């Protein structure tokens, strides 16, 4: 199957804000329809994505180690981290809720680190490997990204409700700040990555293809 023409071949550029195909003859700096700045590729996509990704990776450590919530029942206070919250549900037999929180709070950020690193490294090595699948992975990361905010919202609601002075009191702790920052920075990382870079390798490595054909 033949590939459709590319925007670069037709001297077109996609406007990221309104989706218009902008004619690039005369090098306009702004989209003629919505006025958003035009870039053929997102500026410094790789550097920015690495920076955001590493920042969130650093925050991921305190987010998981520091307590996110303090529960005080009749005078006895107990700190809980994200993982201990998951375990609590698990032990209480609510494995489904435990699974939801585990996926949203621990698996999703972890998966985002792995996938974005994989995408960054393969793009930097000009790899032509599994392009379609890598495109899919990127879209997947974009979709799942913000579900990690779940725990922040749960802590906020629970802390605002349980306010019975001496009897029972729940307060948020610093862990939730770092956790929220992880979510924000992984979202920024995914937004600054340019998926078109996956397809940008100018000449697909013909030698490799030939080698593969020869070996079959």
């Amino acid at each position, binding site marked *: 199957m033949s*590939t*459709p*023409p*590319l*925007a670069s071949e037709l001297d*077109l*550029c*996609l406007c*990221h*804000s*309104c*989706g*218009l*195909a*902008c*004619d690039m003859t005369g090098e306009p700096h702004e989209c003629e329809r*919505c*006025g958003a700045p035009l870039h053929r590729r997102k500026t410094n996509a790789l550097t920015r994505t690495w920076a955001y990704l590493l920042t969130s990776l650093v925050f991921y450590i305190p987010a998981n180690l520091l307590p996110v919530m303090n529960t005080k029942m009749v005078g006895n206070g107990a700190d809980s981290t994200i993982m201990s919250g998951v375990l609590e*549900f698990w032990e*209480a037999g*609510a494995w489904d*809720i435990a699974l*939801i929180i585990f996926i949203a709070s621990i698996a999703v950020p972890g998966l985002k680190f792995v996938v974005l690193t994989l995408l960054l490294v393969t793009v930097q090595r000009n790899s032509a490997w599994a392009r*379609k699948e890598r*495109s*899919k992975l990127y*879209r997947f990361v974009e979709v799942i*990204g*913000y*579900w990690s*905010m*779940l*725990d*922040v*919202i*749960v802590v*906020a*609601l*629970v*802390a*605002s*409700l*349980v*306010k*019975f002075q001496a*009897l*029972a009191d729940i307060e*948020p*702790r*610093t862990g*939730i*700040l770092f956790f*929220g*920052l992880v979510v*924000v920075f992984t979202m920024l990382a995914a*937004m600054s990555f340019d*998926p*078109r870079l*996956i*397809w940008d390798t100018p000449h697909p490595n013909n030698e490799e293809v030939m080698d593969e054909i020869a070996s079959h």
Partner: protein
Amino acid sequence: MVSTDQLIICEHCDCVYRKTTLAKHQKTLCTRCGGVLQRYNGLTVEQRLALTVTALMLWIFANFYPVMSISLKGLKNSATLWDSVLALSLGPITFIALVAAIAMIIAPVIQLLLLIWVLGHALAGRRSPGFRFCMRWLETLRPWSMLEVCLLGAMVAVIKLAGLLDVLPGIGLFALAILSLMMIRIAGRDIRDLWDLP
């Protein structure tokens, strides 16, 4: 060469296609990377506006009525979305309260107001003043508006607390549930279609 507004560029791999008219439930995919190019959206301007106004009403309910209330040994307490933002704003973690406020309250209401402004004028057959500005903000706010997550969070909170004390879901929670589903329909990526209005 054809006019460029009839062209569509795949945002994932830069392939260029000509736009087509879609029938119900159809979508077009990029042949190279498999990304979605166009998705059918059957809403007319009137329908969009009606849904947006409804959504704004629901937003008011979701924000001014408690999401849930609890009781413990005769003591009662209830919380709205704003209360939960305030609970985060104490101490050194204020920043996250700001993020939560944007994600749960501010981004959705700005989206709705901008949509009403744009659609209201479109209904009268003209472009609203500041149309470009509104459309760009709608695009910028989209990823930061997290009502679906907020709904799931509220449900998890209900279950989490149900083990400790009596929990009663409030009007706010039901409004939130419908609102979050409606937001997906009216404030999704396809608001870009509004650019094609005369």
